[in-house]
């Protein structure tokens, strides 16, 4: 599903964010990405979503080489990935419902079919009753769950989550991890970056540990 081979990422200015990274994530696997902030977790996720390109090495995602991926093929790769951001990236000029609707609009889904899917996704994260609310009226945990609903509404085969529990207290973190676990059970590939040790103990899975851009396990 995701295969990195001797991947380096050097930013303009010389900062080497990732060094000699080689790993593989199989289909349906749930994997943690751990390490301190600045260890390169976000950069790694950005490479998988083709937001950044590797400087050298090969990064294969769903059979596509990110380094040589054409700009016109990029949107179609991203439609297969569900992205969950630490800062949520929700749009505050529209309701929760419309936020979740956006990926389906982009793919050109029929309106009635989309509405059903949006409600199903909102139900999944427990926000069905808040569909008409503006995201700004939601709590931090609710915003994170809304972001998850938007990521899964398109039924992607891979979910990438960047510090999904970063700003949340333990109770909310548990809720969100339970949602992820249920996706894992239906065969979705998950890559979750976190620096929260308690989550790893509570929901054990394979972990890739990064330290100063290098894999340490």
């Amino acid at each position, binding site marked *: 599903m995701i295969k990195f081979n001797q991947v380096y990422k050097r930013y303009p200015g010389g900062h080497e964010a990732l060094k000699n990274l080689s790993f593989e994530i199989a289909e349906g696997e749930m994997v943690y990405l751990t390490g301190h902030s600045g260890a390169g977790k976000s950069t790694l996720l950005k490479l998988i979503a083709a937001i950044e390109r590797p400087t050298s090495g090969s990064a294969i995602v769903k059979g596509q080489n990110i380094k040589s991926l054409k700009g016109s093929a990029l*949107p179609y790769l991203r439609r297969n990935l569900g992205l969950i951001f630490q800062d949520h*990236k929700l749009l505050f000029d529209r309701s929760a419902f419309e936020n979740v609707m956006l990926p389906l609009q982009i793919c050109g889904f029929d*309106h009635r079919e989309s509405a059903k899917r949006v409600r199903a996704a909102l139900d999944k994260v427990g926000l069905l009753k808040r569909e008409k609310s503006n995201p700004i009226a939601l709590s931090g945990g609710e915003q994170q769950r809304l972001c998850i609903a938007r990521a899964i509404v398109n039924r992607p085969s891979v979910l990438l989550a960047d510090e999904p529990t970063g700003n949340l207290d333990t109770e909310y973190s548990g809720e969100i991890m339970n949602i992820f676990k249920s996706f894992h059970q239906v065969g979705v590939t998950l890559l979750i970056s976190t620096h929260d040790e308690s989550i790893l103990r509570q929901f054990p899975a394979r972990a890739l540990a990064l330290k100063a851009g290098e894999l340490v396990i």
Partner: protein
Amino acid sequence: MKSAILQHLRVIRFTFQRLLHTPGASLLNLIVIGIALSLPVGGYVMLKNIQGISEQMAGTPQISVFLALDTSQDEISRFRKQLKEHAAIDHIEFAPRDLALKQLQLSTGLADVIGGLTQNPLPDAFIIYPVAMDVQKLELLRDDLKSWPKFEHVQLDSSWAYKLEALLKFARLAVLILAAMLSFALIAITFNTIRLQILTQREEIEVSKLIGATNGFIRRPFLYFGLAQGLLGGAAAWLIIAISLQLLNYSLANLTHLYATSFTLSHLSLSDSISLLGFSAYLGWLGAWLSVSQHLWQIEPR
């Protein structure tokens, strides 16, 4: 296919919602575009109207040649033959002086005065119908005829109409230049409007790109917006001209009444109106397209 059409319809509905979302700014933009377009188009309408009058009044061009009083009958028949053979002349009419005098007596009621004359003061005359219609060739023919012996007075009728035509040609060029410049203005206005929209929707564009929107999907609402703005601006120009013509016609009615004629300025024809709307819509689309291609690539998610 059906979903593609539905998607376009949704974008169109969204475009009008966006126009109505900021009614003040939208209206102001439309008025600016309307005024900018109404200047050259109004000029074009005026020229069309003036051209209509000049065509009405000019008719077919004629050259009148008045011969010297001492021209003999032999000379006249020789001239007649030469004129008939002239390449630039289609046909001629001869008006003998005796006939002209009789007509004058009959038509003007000056019989008494004319009867008192001891000799006929009128000359023999040829009325010449040239082949060519354009001013330059007519003037060339006139100058040629002037050089003939005994051709005392050569007059190119309706030459004023031809001078007017030349003047109109000049004015038409001026209108064209104005139109070209203001077309650029329209493109610039749309360019800037779209630029501001892109900046205010930066976040939405970024998120859309992150969740798999193609460039075409992101570009589409802006292109439709430019198209709609151009189209409505063209309609505003049409209305501005219509209202101006109403006002002008109202005061023109007083004027033409004094001259016992009736004349009204007419608006653009249907096909010209459609051309105006089509052209302004195209310019709006072009401005939006330029703006989008200039600015959209700068917004990449990080």
